[in-house]
């Protein structure tokens, strides 16, 4: 079973060895990890807006309102 981008991001954020490997070779590491072609493309294109669209909802960030 191919691993998802969610698995990859979560593991990168908790595994120093994988993170260092990724930093040295982002696309190769993403491929070796088993990401789908579509997800590897996000890494290759540095398409962080797409990541944000998929996984973040900044409008729902808690916000301070003591003004």
């Amino acid at each position, binding site marked *: 079973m191919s691993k998802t981008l*969610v698995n*990859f*991001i*979560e593991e*990168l*954020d*908790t595994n120093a060895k994988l*993170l260092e490997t*990724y930093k040295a070779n*982002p696309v190769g590491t993403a491929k070796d990890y088993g990401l789908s072609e579509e997800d590897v493309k996000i*890494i290759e294109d*540095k398409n*962080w807006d797409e*990541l*944000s669209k*998929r*996984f*973040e*909802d*900044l*409008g*729902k*960030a*808690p*916000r*301070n*309102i*003591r*003004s």
Partner: protein
Amino acid sequence: MNKQGSLVVVGTGISPAGQMTILTQSYIKEADIVFMGIMNKIGENVVQKLNSNCHNLDDLYQSGKSRGITYIQMKDRIVEAVKQGQRVVAAFYGHPGVFVNPSHSAIEEVLALGLPARMLPGISAEDCLVADLGIDPAQFGCQSYEATQFLFRKYRIDPYMTQIIWQIGLAGEHTHTVLNAEHCQKGLQLLTDILLTHYPKQHQIILYEAATFPVCEPKIEKLSLIDLPSAKPSLISTLVIPALGLPDYDEDKLAKLGLTKEIVIKSRKS
């Protein structure tokens, strides 16, 4: 006898998984119920793997609805679960006590009920900023505040201190109803005018976004102060105005301590 309810408020950090403390993870695991205000689906996923009884607070946000109401409802949900006798964890992204209203109000209310409540520290955007920008808040001292509150009230800037200005994407926004950063232009203009009374036009300032995914780098946009009004901050941008440097020694204060500038400089060197 009924089980006694309790509340622990925790922070999940700015990145999705790696900035959660071991103790935070343990409290999440042990909780009867977990409420999440995390806004990052991968971060939510991490929390949900630790505890199957997780509930999102995000459904309470609605465009056009005041954040004030949303936060009271969040607080009520959290406190209600404690009243029912549950061991409750409320998890917010970053540090749960930094620029977050319902975390503090829930703790106050639970304590007022005579039940246990506490907050655990988390890694905030400012912690990431110190690391990514290499700014030590102790070097020049630091003033850290919220953009709109600063604009609305009679605060004073000390330009010899680093300024860390939060919620810059909402500068001047008073309705608490918007869910985007497209209404800050007037606020940025006013802030620029104020800053220009302290700093030169070309003073280099930084629009900063810590990486919220480990695949990317932080966004560090350097610009001249004069260009701030045309900047496009996001809802997670923080503005940094580096200090002008160290101010002169205050010889009067030194004299009151029985010191002179020369003595201080000499003892620093030896």
